């Protein structure tokens, strides 16, 4: 079971975990990652972060990434929820859940998903600092490196 959502609203990891695992007795482990808005950027305090995306391509990209993860790690299910719009420091941004028969597949599948999502899904972050100035977040080479350790996409 693959669930993909792009939404402005908050998500509840407990409810999503339950939705992924309920009425199933074949699962061996559930791994999760939650991305959170940091309160500083380059040492400066931010007041908010705004996430923009490409409706349509976002969902297609997330579905392709989820399919690749399910096939590669033999996942029994995964959930990808990404928030958009204005978020505040401490807010949750992204949820990745993976279910598998054994822990290693669940953990590796979860890491693969967040690494690939950061480099292959069309989202862009803009930070608003407490002094009112704004700046688009630059892509990091370290994110490309993290994705590259899994090899070629597809």
């Amino acid at each position: 079971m693959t669930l993909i959502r792009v939404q402005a609203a908050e998500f509840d990891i407990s409810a999503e975990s339950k939705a992924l695992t309920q009425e199933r007795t074949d699962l061996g482990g559930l791994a999760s990652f939650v991305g959170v808005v940091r309160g500083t950027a380059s040492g400066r305090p931010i007041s908010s972060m705004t996430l923009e995306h490409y409706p349509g391509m976002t969902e297609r990209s997330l579905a392709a990434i989820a399919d690749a993860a399910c096939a590669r790690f033999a996942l029994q299910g995964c959930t990808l929820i990404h928030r958009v719009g204005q978020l505040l420091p401490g807010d949750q941004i992204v949820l990745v859940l993976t279910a598998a028969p054994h822990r290693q597949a669940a953990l590796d599948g979860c890491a693969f998903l967040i690494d690939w999502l950061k480099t292959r899904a069309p989202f862009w972050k803009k930070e608003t600092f407490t002094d009112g100035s704004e700046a688009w977040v630059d892509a990091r080479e370290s994110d490309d490196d993290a994705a590259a350790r899994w090899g070629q996409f597809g």
Partner: protein
Amino acid sequence: MRILYFAWLRERVGTGEEDLPLPAGITDVAGLIVWMQERGPGFAAAFGQARLVRCAVNQDFATPDTKLQDSDEVAFFPPVTGG
């Protein structure tokens, strides 16, 4: 063609989307980026550093040599920063 712009490309060109015919003589993404650079100051600012511009054609990531047709949806944006 339907052209979409996101993030700082959208801010610099001053619009999020527009419809325009595939310019005469343009056959691929690299050619369209060069054509965009010459449309005015906002476009020059958006497309001037071509290595920072990413492109999708019909909602799939494209490369400079991806061919274009008049019926395509083409999107330009900076490197993605989600997650």
